[in-house]
């Protein structure tokens, strides 16, 4: 059975279902411009991940995968065994640049032009980050600047970065609220729990959830610093607030366990401290990390036909 599947898979062209921002489809105006998939360094894990870049829009897109077990697609008059659903959403390239600024600060600790900072032999495509105009113009959010002659020099600044990240958290909290995302510890397991949760949800739940989402784009140390900066108590030593505690006790086992295995099994090399992983990330967790690892291998011919 397995070997037959292998043959069929190998014989067919590879195919994916992707939900993409429509601006991605803009046709290039200049020759040489275009849209392509490439691997860049994931700023949270430091490992390679797949991104989409449109050089005409000067925009980077993040690729995430939504993956439920035991699903397949019918597309027109065909069957697609791979039931995953991919997303290509615009991404703030400053997160990726920030990774290199922090690295440069650790290694050289001096003011440098940004094109000297973003040098990565392992990921030669990284230079495309310099084409993300919006991000390059936003460097002042995370650096101190110096202008000498006509050239600009940058140096990572942690305080400014935390301030910038806090704004990101605040605008994410806003979106979570307007979109009615359940951020309590038991999400979506039943309508009963859901409606109960809405009553229970605190401002802290929202902030913590948003912090978790933002942490997917920043190094671990910075995520821990951001947690402090947001004045969020660490989850490992919960304050003895009876109602909160009760909710956590009663609801967490339902979802949390599943959640953790989900994260751990898909993100093989990276163990995150558990205080960052609230069970509340449930709904978006499925969209989240699994893709970063999986999609790369699915865009490679060998691993697909091997499977």
């Amino acid at each position: 059975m397995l070997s037959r599947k292998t043959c069929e898979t190998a014989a067919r062209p590879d195919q994916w279902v992707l939900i993409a921002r429509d601006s991605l489809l803009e046709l290039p105006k200049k020759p040489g411009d275009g849209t392509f998939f490439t691997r860049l360094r994931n700023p949270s894990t430091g490992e390679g991940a797949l991104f989409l870049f449109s050089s005409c829009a000067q925009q980077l897109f993040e690729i995430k995968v939504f993956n439920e077990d035991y699903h397949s697609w019918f597309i027109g008059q065909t069957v697609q065994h791979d039931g995953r659903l991919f997303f290509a959403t615009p991404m703030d390239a400053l997160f990726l640049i920030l990774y290199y600024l922090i690295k440069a600060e650790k290694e050289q600790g001096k003011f440098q032009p940004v094109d000297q900072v973003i040098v990565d032999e392992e990921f030669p495509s990284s230079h495309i980050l310099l084409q993300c105009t919006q991000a390059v113009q936003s460097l002042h959010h995370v650096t101190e600047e110096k202008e000498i002659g006509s050239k600009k020099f940058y140096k990572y600044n942690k305080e400014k970065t935390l301030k910038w990240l806090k704004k990101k958290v605040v605008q994410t909290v806003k979106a979570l609220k307007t979109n009615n995302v359940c951020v309590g510890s038991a999400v979506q397991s039943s309508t009963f729990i859901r409606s109960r949760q809405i009553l229970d949800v605190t401002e802290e739940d929202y902030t913590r959830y948003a912090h978790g989402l933002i942490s997917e784009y920043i190094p671990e140390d910075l995520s821990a610093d951001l947690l402090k900066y947001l004045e969020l108590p660490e989850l490992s030593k919960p304050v003895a607030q009876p109602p909160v505690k009760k909710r956590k006790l009663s609801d967490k086992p339902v979802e949390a366990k599943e959640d953790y295995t989900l994260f751990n099994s898909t993100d093989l090399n990276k163990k995150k401290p558990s205080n960052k992983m609230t069970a509340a990330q449930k709904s978006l967790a499925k969209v989240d990390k699994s893709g970063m690892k999986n999609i790369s291998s699915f865009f490679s011919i060998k691993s697909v036909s091997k499977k």
Partner: protein
Amino acid sequence: MMCENQPGTLIKLDLGSLTQAAHDAVHLLPCEIQYNGHAAVDKYFIPTIHQGASAKEVSFRGRPLKGQEIKIPAGYVGLVLEENHKPCSEEKGRTVCMKSTFLSFTQWNLETLPSADDCAVMSLMWPKISKAIHQPVDNEE
């Protein structure tokens, strides 16, 4: 690991292929089908879909399924991408084409009635949340 995915490789998305892309009906099925390729979906699956009391219903492999139509969020488009491998010219750049486009798809459940709590529906919230994470912050202090 590195030889598996040459990190410098760019995989081109052929935007020109959009004009030839089909508009296929797309269904997400709650089972794994160990097959890729042609199937007479129009002949055996589509005609048996009917509107039930509270959801679309269909019978597939003797199992009743309940389904709902899911719209792709505004500003987004559903694409079926395809890479045709040419084993001999692997060195030359790789290209992915757009085979089909869609603005909604039907999601099918086995037992449970489709609802806004279904994972596939939840996943479509991602573009909105992602937008909040990635949009530029206000400049003022």
